[in-house]
């Protein structure tokens, strides 16, 4: 802004004629309105409000006017400049909105394009299914116990009341570590169940003992659609004062309800295992048909073959002989245990029809299971 002009220049006073100021203002407004884009608007702004524009010149001359004329002239010029600036801002906003809209349209993409740039990984469903079962029991206060897969026969058999002549202790069923002569008399086996972990848990803890024992186990079956020599097991052991078969039943019911939803229940059928007495085979009601397919040929159930029940595994009251071998007083403590294979559970829970799909590590099988199950 110029400093007040003390020396009058009468010639310049002419420039402050009111109509000229109005004309300059109108010309500016027209030019802004006519600007088709932001560039044209910028040029119009320079032309009409720049240093050499009529309004700028007029503004500069105000100081040169006689004092009595300054107020009126100043007001006039100020109003004109105000109108021009306002018009410019409005037009600029307008043009910017237009430009933004145009650019956003130009930047539009096909959002349906596939994007498999970082292919997803996945955890194996046997791992996550096992964890899911573990979590059910961890929430109840159980600990997850683990042990070696290559195990001494004492842990895998003797302590579990399987005497040396028990048929399970033959090379037909069990992988034996070769001794130096190559014969199966090393006293070491690939564990045939995770029960040795139960034994180890009883030896390393004082009762009460509540553990869940997941892990890999081994039996000499050839791989086919329903068998695998290496399979996952989850076993449970509870040893405390006053535990009963009814506690076992309630625990099993709780597990299948946690895995398959409310209303699920289990059934026990007497059976024989050396490490439990009484022993039972445990079935759960078919989670798909809930038993309603039994005797109804119109609604066959593929999951349970219309049997209504699905066999889960074995269970029972811990044989007091096992407690004795583990140094637990059977007069004071009792316990229950169960165990089942998780491949089978995975098969019917997820409709898998061939064991080999679970075993062979094909990524097409595993990927859909993601990170949790």
């Amino acid at each position: 802004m110029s400093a007040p002009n003390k020396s009058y220049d009468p010639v310049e006073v002419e420039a402050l004629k009111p109509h000229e100021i109005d004309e300059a203002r109108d010309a500016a407004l027209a030019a802004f309105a006519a600007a088709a884009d932001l560039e044209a608007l910028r040029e119009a702004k320079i032309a009409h409000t720049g240093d050499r524009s009529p309004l700028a010149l007029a503004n500069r001359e105000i100081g040169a006017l006689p004092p009595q004329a300054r107020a009126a002239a100043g007001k006039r010029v100020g109003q004109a400049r105000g109108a021009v600036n306002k018009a410019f801002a409005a037009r600029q906003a307008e043009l910017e909105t237009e430009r933004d809209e145009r650019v956003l349209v130009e930047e539009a993409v096909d959002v349906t394009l596939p994007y498999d740039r970082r292919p997803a990984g996945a955890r194996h469903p046997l791992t996550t299914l096992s964890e899911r079962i573990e979590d059910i029991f961890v929430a109840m206060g159980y600990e997850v116990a683990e042990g070696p897969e290559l195990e001494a026969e004492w842990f895998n058999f003797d302590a579990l009341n399987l005497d040396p002549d028990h048929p399970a202790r033959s090379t037909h069923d069990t992988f034996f570590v070769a001794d130096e002569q190559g014969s199966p008399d090393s006293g070491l086996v690939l564990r045939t169940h995770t029960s040795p972990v139960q034994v180890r848990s009883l030896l390393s803890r004082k009762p009460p003992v509540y553990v869940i024992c997941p892990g890999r186990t081994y039996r000499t079956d050839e791989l086919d659609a329903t068998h695998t020599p290496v399979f996952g097991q989850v076993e449970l052991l509870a040893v405390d004062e006053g535990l009963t078969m009814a506690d076992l039943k309630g625990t099993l019911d709780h597990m299948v309800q946690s895995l398959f939803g409310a209303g699920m229940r289990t059934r026990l059928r007497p059976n024989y295992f050396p490490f439990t007495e009484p022993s039972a085979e445990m079935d759960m009601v078919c989670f798909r048909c809930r038993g309603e397919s039994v005797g109804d040929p119109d609604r066959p159930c593929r999951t349970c073959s219309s049997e209504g029940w699905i066999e889960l595994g074995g269970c029972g009251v811990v044989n007091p002989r096992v407690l004795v071998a583990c140094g637990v007083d059977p007069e004071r403590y009792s316990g229950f245990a169960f165990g089942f294979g998780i491949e089978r559970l995975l098969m019917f829970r997820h409709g898998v029809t061939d064991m080999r799909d679970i075993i062979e590590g094909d990524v097409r099988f595993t990927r859909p299971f993601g990170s949790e199950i």
Partner: protein
Amino acid sequence: MRVPLSWLREYVDLPAEVGGREVATRLIAAGLEVELVERLGADLTGPLVVGQVLAIEELTEFKKPIRYCQVDVGEANGTGQPQNIVCGARNFAVGDKVVVVLPGAVLPGGFKISARKTYGHLSEGMICSTRELGVGDDHDGILVLPPEHEAGTDAIALLELLDEVLDIAVTTDRGYCLSMRGVAREAATAFGLPLRDPALLDVPAADGAGYPVRIEDEAACDRFVARTVTGVRPDARSPIWLQRRLQKSGLRPISLPVDITNYVMLELGQPLHAYDHSRLAGPIVVRRAAAGERLTTLDNVGRTLHGDDLVIADDRGPIGLAGVMGGAETEIADAPPVERSPLAPEGTTDIVIEAAHFDPVTVARAARRHRLGSEAARRFERGVDPQAAGAAAQRAVDLLVLLGGGTAGAGVTDLGTPAPPATVELRADHPDRVAGVAYGREVVVRRLQEVGCTVTGTDLLAVTAPSWRPDLTDPNDLAEEVLRLEGYEALPATLPRPPAGRGLTEGQRLRRRVGRALAGAGYVETLNYPFVGEKSWDGLGLPADDPRRQAVRLANPLSEEEPLLRTTLLPGLLDALRRNHGRGSQDLALFETGLVFRPTGRETAPVRPPVTRRPTDEEIAALDASLPPQPRRVAVVLAGAREPAGWWGSGRPAEWADAIEAARVVAREAGVELIVERDQHAPWHPGRCAALRVRLDGERRLVGHAGELHPRVVKALGLPERACAMELDLDVLQAAGGGPVAGPAISTFPVATQDVALVVDNAVPAAEVEAALRAGAGELLESVRLFDVFTGEQLGAGRKSLAYALRFRATDRTLTADEATAAREAAVATAISRTGATLRGA
């Protein structure tokens, strides 16, 4: 055990309307594993009648001989006239009784019978073969009936074609259910009906006049009953009812004496053996075999005996493997004589019946040793009622007299005194405490009595198990009897209250985190078998003295090619990689977490502590010392594109750096800083292999390797090109893991960024340059990032330029440009002095 329902009804008066399914349901509830209820004749519709062949006209003009027969079927066809039937079989003659199926009938398999013209004649039905009737599958021959059955008799009833058979898988503790007697007892209890015990027979006492027997090993044979029957007609055949019961039970009728021994075994559970009296030489002796003795068993296999085998012998040597199988030399001979043995040109007429009781373990071992399973061995292994031997022998004698026209020998041999069952002390409330149900003493006593136990006492019961239940030795065995008979379905469901738990261990949590992190990084988990072979090591190019070749060997591997247990996860993972690749998945990133087996050679032989007490701490330590270390590993393998090409541009192949980054992903989850150093280690590419170390207890510990696989390994194993791998010891990583992360204090003052490019020899690892920069920069340094590696002529051969972005920041002020530059210069100076670097452009 196959149990025909019609036979079962002989011992239990099951209501007529009770069918096989209901019996099965009740038996299952009582603990018998009924696997199947087979409905015999379910798809059979009569009329099916006895016919007598009146005339046969041989038709010869066809490709095969055909017979046109007239068969008398009595009044069964409504006319009384003979039935004209065309038949292709030839094993019958005029006068024979046969089974005729008349038009309107339906045979098994939906085979509808109607009168139709064939071979130029109208055939009004069919003469049936055993196979068509479902009563045997020996051959296509016609079933010729014994002559006593009248023409027109309903053959469905005669042949007992309609029946239900329960197929029961008998568990090892229920040997007594390998008999009709045992199953009938369970059925009677299950239905609350009385049992007619077929073993309740009048049995004469030993009189010293029977066939001479000597037991030399009374521990292995605690009872031996021998009876004789003379004058059995060699041509006597088993009646239809007996044959049918055997067939339904899964045994083939052979000859009357053999059929009777089998029948009695099925009925009473006592295996019997019938000797041809004329072929025995001297007294029967029960003894251990002399090692190397020979015996040809009934299956015509010559066997060399083991010194532990218990044999039945006569003066000439072994004549049977006790409790397992008899010998061919003294076999009952059929009539007309079959030339199985030159010693038996005639049919057998005089028979010695053996009903003995052998030690279960001795029998089981012999059966296993000779790989010879038999119905007898199966029963002895599971326990046979020693008190039933006399009744069983008597039953066989009675049947031989009745059906074979024989005469019972006067003498009775009955040696040995089996130990009586032990008496178990049982608190009357023990079953209640096992079950969690208040049964009460009365129920407990009643149930045990139903099982056959003798029970005395009030609060403390003295329970003596019956002779057929050698499995009832412990209080819990008795409790189980009460529970199962009261019904497992009656058990309530209660939940115990475990003490408050501590959740997962650090190791378990780490494993889950590692799995999730690797899955998040695009890796797919596989769980591979741990079975490997020498070939696996060769494929990996392991040197001959590589410790990974020191592996546990299985005595009975599934495949002789893979008798070893893995010492590294790589063979299984690489197999899975190759399998996936072979199935068309090109871009692969796999991982596995699992145990490997690393014997040290210092393992001791395992001890075998007794199971009647807790093993001592020394014994437990000795057991553990017998096991090879089994560390937990994590490994990844990669091939193909890490990022595929797509509309976004080109892709990126998986490379050595991805494998090392996978290790860093794992280490981050463990809270461990990984030290990466160049290494040469099979099976990796010698120029693209990193050793991975961590600090543990002040030392640098090797935890694994990562990089690109050696091209020779890739070729040898048939892997996709440039496959990469990483393997880490998770246990060591976990041990090296720091405690909780210290939360960083965040400075909000501005950052000062300075770039620096250093030129070093190619051999200088970038990690060393970075470490030097960090050391020199001091505590103002917030981060260092290598953003470019450049090689080119202007640097000179064998040199590379490493460009770093250094970020400086103070916690308490805004850094001046001079401060930042001074810190940078200090960093550079350290790098220069430590690595011989020169500042690029300087």
